[in-house]
């Protein structure tokens, strides 16, 4: 890891209040996460629904208050800033949302949507029409699109408009929440290629949040796997994919059906569903689903083991190509 982080997240926690009068309580959506993103680097957050990846992204973007930890962006603590002080930061860090069409205001034209960042930040002295043209060209849309409304766009086109909005003010970091969600296979490549081109040309850093591991494999330099609001494993994408050390990572990777009918599926079946955040398991939180779990795992939470190339939270990291001890008849509960 080079030491030029643009974003530094340290021990961040996000808690949500639950329950009404009498039994007020809180759950941790993000339960202590640390990572760094370097300039020009693509960092992927992977996990299933409820793993806290979107909450974490929103916390980094200041849309969600954090209850502990710190977030440093371009050498400035941003987690304590009030909205006014946060505004200039928002020029440098933009976010793309899951729903390509739903994240565009339905009664605004593409031209207005693309130039909205300039209006919000009161940037004068630029011809907004020219800017709209420049941005639409940059993301590969015909300039005639500027008078269209979001409902007249296909998913891929709407996503391109989203990208144009995200890069309008030349940010240093883009946070993309499921950038390929809702897109057809033949179109998702276009969007990923576009993001990648822009990353190279503009030197952007990116945080990509997704559940699609195949996508991560191709676009991310480093990958972190989240489970119940914590990182269970993080490292160079190539290495995490070729030799997962955490059983959850291994299970996720093996759960990815591949478009090859003759592929023999040597699958690691998880014997249970994701536990509720209201009742986090004791010890290692993955032990209720882990095929390798031993008695120690049920009461002793594993330390996060940090080396130069890998972060791993497991008592018994897997050797490359490890198979579950004996695959029990999968009983879902």
């Amino acid at each position: 890891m080079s030491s030029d982080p643009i974003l530094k997240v340290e021990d961040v926690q996000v808690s949500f209040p639950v329950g009404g009068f009498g039994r007020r309580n809180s759950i941790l959506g993000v339960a202590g996460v640390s990572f760094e993103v370097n300039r020009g680097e693509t960092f992927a957050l992977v996990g299933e629904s409820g793993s806290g990846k979107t909450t974490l992204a929103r916390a980094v973007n200041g849309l969600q208050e954090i209850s502990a930890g710190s977030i440093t962006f371009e050498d400035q603590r941003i987690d304590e800033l009030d909205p006014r002080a946060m505004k200039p930061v928002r020029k440098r860090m933009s976010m793309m949302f899951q729903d390509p069409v739903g994240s565009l205001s339905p009664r605004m034209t593409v031209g207005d949507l693309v130039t909205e960042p300039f209006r919000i930040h009161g940037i004068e002295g630029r011809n907004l029409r020219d800017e709209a043209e420049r941005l639409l060209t940059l993301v590969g849309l015909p300039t005639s699109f500027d008078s269209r409304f979001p409902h007249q766009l296909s998913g891929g086109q709407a996503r391109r408009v989203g990208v144009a909005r995200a890069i309008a003010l030349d940010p240093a970091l883009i946070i993309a929440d499921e950038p390929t969600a809702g897109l057809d296979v033949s179109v998702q490549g276009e969007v990923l290629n576009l993001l990648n081109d822009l990353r190279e040309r503009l030197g952007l850093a990116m945080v990509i949040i997704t559940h699609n591991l195949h996508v991560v494999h191709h676009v991310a330099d480093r990958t972190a796997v989240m489970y119940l609001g914590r990182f269970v494993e993080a490292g160079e994408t190539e290495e995490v994919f070729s030799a997962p050390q955490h059983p959850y990572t291994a299970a996720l990777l093996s759960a990815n059906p591949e478009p090859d009918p003759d592929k023999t599926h040597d699958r690691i079946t998880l014997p249970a569903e994701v536990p509720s955040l209201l009742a986090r398991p004791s010890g290692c939180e993955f032990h209720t689903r882990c095929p390798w779990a031993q008695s120690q795992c049920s009461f002793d939470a594993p330390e996060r083991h940090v080396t130069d190339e890998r972060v791993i939270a497991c008592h018994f990291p897997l050797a490359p190509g490890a198979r579950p001890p004996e695959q029990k008849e999968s009983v879902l509960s």
Partner: protein
Amino acid sequence: MAELWRPIRKILREPLGALGLFLVLFVIFGAVFADLLTSWDPTKINPRDRFQGPSANHLMGTDQLGRDLFARVLHGGRIALFVALVSTAVSLVIGIVLGLIAGYGPRWLDNLMILLFDAMKSFPTVMLALALVTLMGPSLTAVMVVVVLVTVPGYARIIRTQTIALKTSEYVTAAQSMGASSARILRVHILPNVIGPLVILASMDIPVVIGIEAGMSFLGLGVRPPTPSWGSILNDGFTNIRDTAWIAIAGGVPIIITTLGFTFLGETLRDVFDPRLKGR
């Protein structure tokens, strides 16, 4: 131009909508060109001509003071439409502002405003009218204040509910993440998306407002004589129904025509543009 024609064509395709549009235009025409359509002064008393039936001279006859009823009906239409349009517009503006604040603002403010809206709604209209007239004296302003107080809570609640729904939508979150101020989010991202259904509902309230104006003037709580109002014409008609039925007819028919016209038009607007609102 085509943008403007499309909705009108859609309305005309519905028989009731076409009828409604025709009636409304008819009433507006009468009110706007009142001075051209008759040379009589609606307030000029002419005791020698009292209780005349319709004739070429007095198209609808005259009332107990010999005033020309046709002129009074046309000018009364001006009052009715003026009250309806101005007070509905004022209600819309106040309702939208309050609704946006309640929906987008902090939770405690929302709770407080909901309490206020409910309290206002629970007042019977007639009681409210009587109380206000006692305070202000009978006048056109009193009528409009009553209308605003009666309709604002409903409008505000509709806007509030929709604002709350949109507050967490992705495009609003996206605007927040770009650093947009609350004022900008409300103006650019929320208002344009909540205003449509409300305007349609408000257009359906216009006949109600005309009814309130006529009713209050009938009771002597509204427009002060000798200013013509359909309600006061109707009242004159009832007092003198033994002498002639013409006065009551002249006061009643325009109310019916206008109410039906706006109701048909409003319902067609709703069905054509926002079928989800059906049955409200």
